């Protein structure tokens, strides 16, 4: 609020005042103010559960507000659904549910507003206008091809083109960069800068502070459903922004852990894979993991990171090599076999592969333990409850309600619950695929801390991450993947972001990045 007084009324395209919303008695937004100027990119930041999504959904007509006003170009509006918000001028691009893969590009662009001739859809005109529209974004693609044939980055731009063409005043982007690589992010940002220059007001939700500083002009920070502040980004120190978000001084999350560099655990590898691989998945590799060791896996998207995890956990069956645990050879033919060996795996796609949304937090936590005990010996609901309460306390899962369906928890808290699921089985090897993707800074730090604590307790961990700083902070050793091959292994003091990037960029990489 502090800086918002000096904003000219006329420049303000969207203004929300005292927005309040509660769900079943839980207050999600508490008298929040928000204003967006014409021609600015405005970051909306906050930890998971801060109320960002709720605010956006109210602005775009998905939810109705309990109280407060929204003014668009000075006129009070109350969009009752997405269609109305679009018609008023507020368009949204979501991170996950984005357009329709079963329709063509042109059909996606013009769904609901097809050009018509003699009362029927004019497909030729639709194609022509689609090409014209996409040309403005520098895209020259076959608009008759199904959307599913294009990459996420292109789909994102198509979604933006649709939203802007449809609405034209305000564009809301909900985590648009989550699944893009650096180059694609740059393309997206140049599109955003161009739209900003054309006078559009853009709201950007993202977890990446670098990106906030790279494209945004102003930032609004929410915490626990309340407005923390609204600042110009120019000259705002990063630490100030982070402490606004966390509401506490950030403990030096990443740097502390560098201490682990020197003391790589010694002794024999308890779990080792020799010449282990699968054709069409990952080329044969050797990997030995000692107790209390964190092995990081780095590489670009599609380099075989997740595929390596699938092999280690028995989801894919290796067609060469051997796996040994404590000196005896084992057959990892299925995830059940892996669990029986004391392995655990938190997959990358939390929503589709990790959680069972309609099950309660307690049931989700008890799943792996139940699988390990065998279904013949059910865990009583009292045991489940006790187990869940333990982990809710020790991992600080919020809200602290074991009976709540897990789908109502924020991403960070879901991730903690999945971790709890595996921790309950007390595994000897825990494989984490992108454990911090899509979760906020606070939860991020907590999860890294937890990883460190677990390896301190003698657990072995394999951590896959696309954030190099994260890997260098926690891993004793880092395996670098490229083109589905293990191309380098760094350990001790050599584990640095620079070395990993050099390894990825090494000349044996045949295809252009």
């Amino acid at each position: 609020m502090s800086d918002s007084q000096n904003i000219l009324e006329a420049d303000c395209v969207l203004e929300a005042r005292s927005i309040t919303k509660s769900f079943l008695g839980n207050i999600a937004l508490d008298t929040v103010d928000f204003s967006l100027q014409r021609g600015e990119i405005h970051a909306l930041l906050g930890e998971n559960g801060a109320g960002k999504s709720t605010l956006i959904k109210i602005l775009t007509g998905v939810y109705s507000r309990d109280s407060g006003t929204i003014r668009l170009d000075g006129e009070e509006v109350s969009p009752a659904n997405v269609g109305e918000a679009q018609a008023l001028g507020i368009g949204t691009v979501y991170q996950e549910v984005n357009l329709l893969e079963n329709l063509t590009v042109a059909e996606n662009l013009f769904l609901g507003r097809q050009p018509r001739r003699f009362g029927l859809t004019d497909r030729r005109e639709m194609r022509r206008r689609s090409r014209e529209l996409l040309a403005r974004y520098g895209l020259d693609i076959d608009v008759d091809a199904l959307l599913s044939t294009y990459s996420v980055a292109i789909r994102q731009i198509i979604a933006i083109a649709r939203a802007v063409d449809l609405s034209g005043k305000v564009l809301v982007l909900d985590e648009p960069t989550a699944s893009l690589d650096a180059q694609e992010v740059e393309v997206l940002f140049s599109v955003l800068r161009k739209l900003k220059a054309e006078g559009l007001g853009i709201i950007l939700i993202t977890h990446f502070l670098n990106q906030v500083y790279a494209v945004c002009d102003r930032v609004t920070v929410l915490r626990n459903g309340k407005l923390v502040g609204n600042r110009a980004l120019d000259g705002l120190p990063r630490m100030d922004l982070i402490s606004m978000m966390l509401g506490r001084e950030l403990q030096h999350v990443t740097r502390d852990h560098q201490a682990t560099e020197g003391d790589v655990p010694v002794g024999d590898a308890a779990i080792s894979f020799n010449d282990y691989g699968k054709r069409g998945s990952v080329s044969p590799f050797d990997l030995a993991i000692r107790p209390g060791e964190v092995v990081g896996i780095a590489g670009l998207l599609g380099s075989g990171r997740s595929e390596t995890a699938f092999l280690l956990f028995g989801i894919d069956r290796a067609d060469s090599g051997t796996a040994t645990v404590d000196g005896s050879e084992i057959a990892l033919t299925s995830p059940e076999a892996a669990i029986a060996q004391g392995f655990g795996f938190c997959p990358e796609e939390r929503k589709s592969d990790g959680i069972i949304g309609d099950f309660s937090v307690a049931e989700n936590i008890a799943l792996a333990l139940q699988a390990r005990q065998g279904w013949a010996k059910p865990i009583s609901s009292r045991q489940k409850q006790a187990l869940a309460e333990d982990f809710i306390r020790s991992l600080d899962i919020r809200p602290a309600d074991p009976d709540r369906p897990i789908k109502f928890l924020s991403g960070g808290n879901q991730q903690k619950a999945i971790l709890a699921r595996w921790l309950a089985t007390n595994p000897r090897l825990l494989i984490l695929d992108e454990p911090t993707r899509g979760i906020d800074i606070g939860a991020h730090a907590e999860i890294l801390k937890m990883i460190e604590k677990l390896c301190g307790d003698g657990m072995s961990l394999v951590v896959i991450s696309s954030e190099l700083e994260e890997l260098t902070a926690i891993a004793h050793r880092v395996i670098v993947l490229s083109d589905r091959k293990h191309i380098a292994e760094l350990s001790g003091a050599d584990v640095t972001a620079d070395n990993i990037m050099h390894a990825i960029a090494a000349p044996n990489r045949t295809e252009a990045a």
Partner: protein
Amino acid sequence: MIHSRNLPFVTTLAIFVIAYALCALQFPAMLSTRVIGNLLVDNAFLGIAAVGMTFVILSGGIDLSIGSVIAFTSVFVAVTVGSFGLHPLTAFAVVLVISTAFGSAMGAMIRYLQIPPFVVTLAGMFLARGAAYLISTASVPISHPFIDTIQGFYFRFPGGGRLTAMSMLMIAVFVVGGIIASRTKFGANVYALGGNPQSAELMGVPVGRTTIGIYATSGFLSGLAGIAYTLYTSSGYSLATVGVELDAIAAVVIGGTLLTGGTGLIAGTFVGILIQGLIQTYIVFDGTLSSWWTKIVIGVLLFVFIVLQRGIIWYSNRRIDIARLKGA
């Protein structure tokens, strides 16, 4: 180039053409316009109902009430015209209003009570069948000068075949259905719903109105199919057309529409109907085969098409993955 989404339709068409050619080689008489005319008229009511089913399946739903609604319609028309002396046109109008309202109510339940279509239309199936029994359990013959006129109306093909009013009605329904599916907002919304209901809603598709519209269309076309069936058999019978919804689903799937929704063509369903008709015709020509072979061949075809569809999905996913890896 054939876009991969049209591949199932092209395959179906190719299968039909090849099968027809093989049949014609063995029985050259199958090329006669008489056979074609009969094939159309024998399957007219099924074809009309299958168009409604195509919309439902394209949207990711299912409608099990079709056969019962057809039976209800035929009994209703037969009784009101035969016993109460209503003019057939009035009876048609009334029954179409009833069947459309019935479909709309099912659509509203699916949307607003969030009950799966399978359950809602299963209840609808029992309800409509029960209502038909309530009107009459006997087979009610129908005779009215107006109905005789419709039944007597046809165009003559060269070669003696007849394009009857019912065949024309079916073809008209397919043409209008095809245009609605491919060239109207409603049609695009149906595909959108079948692709991903959440995305569709976020893109501003009026999900409630579209869902109700889809089941209303299916109800209306079931009513129309019932009228065609009444004209075809000159009677109404509450025990008739049991399981016709399953024949309709078979025609839709053989026609290349994905059971999961979002992909398919009305024209494909037409070819699906022709294939079913062709099998029946072949069995009649052969004379020694049991008519149950129709079911066996349709069963085999269904398996083939479901496997084919999985194959196409697998293939296109693989292509996307490869494209993605190359991009990475």
